[in-house]
């Protein structure tokens, strides 16, 4: 018998008669856990949330919450009868009520059932929306509307909270701070949450697990570290866009060789026969900068990211390799400069396909 708090089993997620994501299975083991779903726009992430909220029906598979069947081919508990809250990406505040009244409607739903672990005032303060309480939805910005909608959802104290791109309209400068506050609120309220986002850093920070949805399938569902460092397919590597694949030949149980970079050492996370031709995943932090090295590659681009630079280097076989360097490194290289790579190349883990 299943003991998972939320269990999605073999579900085809459809909207308007069109299947968006097929045969999806994942679960949230413990109450209060937060998971994130990542994927490109239009892939069906929102459809998954809408279906779990009961706004869309399913014809295959089942969705159970706390042991209770919510959706299946035979059964569909109406949205108003599931204690599930969905905060929409777009402004879904009631247009004729003030922001305050909108948020208080969330508390009304919860009236007499549970005592809120965080008061209305605390949530307002944490989400920094006290200045807009007396305003109407059309008088506030999209980012403020998102936070107000989030506050309303939080106040309902749902069994399951679904957040659709909750911070997509929040200013970049304020985003990280709100992420921290959101995490704090979710931890304090112990609300089980699914967050949909296309921002992998947001997902890696907020979720204890991340699901990657690509080409109509849930490609990987794992903890953020593993998703980043041990992607299970070339599609996931391409989606995360944080590394490149270069051809290499396995030369021993701990080494492989690339025509441009030479010998590469490390620990394989999967066994390959010696002599096998593979695609090696190289992430920006894998190669180290060393101008004394005899392995020199040409700089074709340099991106300044505040705390670091990401150099794009061109190999002899015209491959482009990203290398991350601390901003304060002693010599800044210009385009067309030669850039040294420390040898021997030693990787923490070797991921190949």
């Amino acid at each position: 018998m299943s003991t998972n708090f939320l269990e999605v089993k073999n579900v085809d997620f459809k909207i308007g008669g069109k299947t968006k994501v097929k045969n999806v299975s994942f679960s949230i083991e413990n109450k209060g856990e937060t998971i994130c779903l990542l994927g490109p726009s239009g892939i069906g992430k929102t459809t998954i949330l809408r279906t779990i909220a009961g706004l869309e029906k399913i014809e295959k598979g089942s969705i159970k919450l706390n042991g209770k069947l919510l959706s299946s081919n035979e059964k569909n508990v109406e949205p108003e009868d599931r204690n599930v809250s969905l905060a929409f990406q777009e402004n879904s505040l009631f247009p004729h009520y003030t922001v305050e009244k909108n948020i208080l409607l969330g508390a009304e739903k919860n009236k007499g059932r549970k005592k809120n672990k965080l008061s209305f005032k605390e949530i307002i303060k944490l989400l920094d929306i006290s200045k807009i309480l007396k305003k109407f939805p059309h008088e506030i910005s999209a980012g403020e509307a998102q936070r107000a909608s989030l506050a309303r959802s939080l106040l309902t104290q749902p069994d399951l909270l679904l957040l659709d791109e909750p911070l997509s309209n929040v200013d970049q400068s304020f985003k990280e701070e709100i992420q921290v506050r959101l995490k704090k609120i979710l931890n304090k309220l112990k609300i089980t949450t699914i967050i949909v986002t296309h921002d992998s850093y947001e997902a890696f920070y907020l979720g204890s697990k991340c699901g990657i949805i690509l080409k109509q399938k849930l490609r990987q569902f794992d903890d953020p570290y593993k998703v980043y460092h041990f992607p299970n397919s070339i599609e996931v590597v391409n989606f995360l866009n944080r590394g490149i694949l270069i051809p290499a030949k396995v030369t021993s149980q701990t080494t492989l060789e690339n025509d441009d970079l030479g010998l590469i050492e490390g620990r394989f996370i999967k066994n390959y026969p010696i002599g096998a031709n593979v695609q090696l995943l190289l992430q920006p932090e894998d190669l180290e900068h060393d101008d004394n090295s005899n392995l020199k590659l040409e700089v074709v681009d340099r991106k300044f990211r505040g705390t670091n630079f990401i150099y794009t280097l061109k190999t002899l076989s015209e491959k482009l390799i990203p290398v991350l360097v601390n901003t304060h490194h002693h010599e800044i290289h210009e385009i067309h400069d030669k850039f040294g790579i420390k040898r021997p190349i030693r990787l923490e883990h070797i991921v190949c396909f």
Partner: protein
Amino acid sequence: MFKNFNIWFASSLIVSIGVLIPIITVSLSFFEDTSNYYQILKDTFLLEYIFNSLILLVSVLILTFLIGTTCAYLVSFYRFPFSNFFKWALILSFAVPPYIYAYSLTAFFENYGTAFTILTNLFGEGSYNKHIPKFDGVFGSILSMSFSLYAYVYILSRASFLYQSQNLIDLGKSLGFSKFKALYSLIIPAARPAIVAGLSLVAMETLAEFGAVDFFSINTLTTGIYNSWISFDDLAFSNRLSFFLLLFIFALFIIENFSRKKAKYHFNSRGGFKQKEKIQLSGKNSFFAFLFCFLIFFLSFLFPLSQMLYWTIKFPENLFDLDVVTLTLNTLYLVTLSSFVLIVFSLVSNYGNRVSKNKTLNLLSTLSISGYAIPGVILAVAFITFIAWFDENIVKALGFLSIKKIFIGTVLGLVLVYFVRFYSLAFNGIKSGYEKINISVDESAYLLGYSKQKTFTNIHVPFLRNSLLFVGILVSLEIVRELPITLILRPFNFETFATTAYISASEDLLEAAAVPSLFLILMATIFIMFTSKYILREK
């Protein structure tokens, strides 16, 4: 189709089908036998009917285009004395239906009419009748309809001009265009869909017009339909003529819908929009702009109003003979009842469409709102045809008593046909209110534990209250002005201002028609004043 069947879906479906019945009846009656009258008419007057209808249509379209767009252009782009007043005053012509305008024209220019009296008072006795032009017949009808209907073009083109960005004007300047060249090569083309939409409404109203053409004894398809039924008691032929007219109107309806859809592309997105700055006119330009707007305002509103007022004062006995209280109560009774029924059903129907998300239902709704395009005469005749058929083939066949008395010549029948005719106004008015409520608002309500009914009553109705008020007043305005349906279907001895004016005018008692016409204009003006802020809103 019935996957999402619920009470909202069912209500919406019933309303849509109910509204479609007259259209189906007319279409089916096309194949029925007609009397000899059809043959006689085909050989004699049918071509004249069609020709007159076309002449009226083309002329009214040209005049309303010139008047409507020029007024809209002047008040949207320029500032001149009273320009803000004219912005509002120019829609008052809606308060004067074409048939009342026709009475005023005749009263003023007829032999020994008001113009004659003015000239006599000013210059003494003389043979002025020879020199006073006569505005009757086709020309009188064209003027009556143009001055009454140009406001459709004015309102829609003004709205479109308002949405035109300053960037468009600046672009013209940078290309070295003169003001006139900018007008015909940039401004008018950009507003084309709105102008076409306005002209389509004018076209539908022109083809549907009964009162004015009947008063001037012009044979058109609409009067043909009325006469074939009233004079020759030939319902089938009446329906056959209606079918021809319907085909014509549907073509216009499709053009109008098409241009409305395209109109969306002509509105600038918020990002690229730069608010237009009105140009302050001075000198003779300012005077001519003022003069033009004043002339149109005078001719379309002040002239018929003062003519009716003048006769009311000149022949006060008509005022005392008229049972104003009963007429007011009758008119208000119809207005209140019909508006209430229309609003309730349109609201339910809109919500039904929203929650059921059913394509078939959406299609039915789109078809059912075509009632506005169908002349009142056709609807009234189709209604009688349907009731007669239903009574004969269903009610009596089942052994029940005749239902004709319940529906024909009763307020119930009248309200039902008003319902069909004005359903699109109410439905679209509420729909445009609904379009401002994002669907995720409903879903948020469900997720907060609201049922569909609670979402409807607690979220939608309070939000839509302004739209409902607007729709109510708009429908009231139409019903106050409406003539043919009321004339054909009203209960015995039940009169409104419109029918009283028509009856007096058709008996050549124009002086007596003045009092009810005046009250009608005043009542309609009040309704317009209430709705003007919605019609003319600039944001």
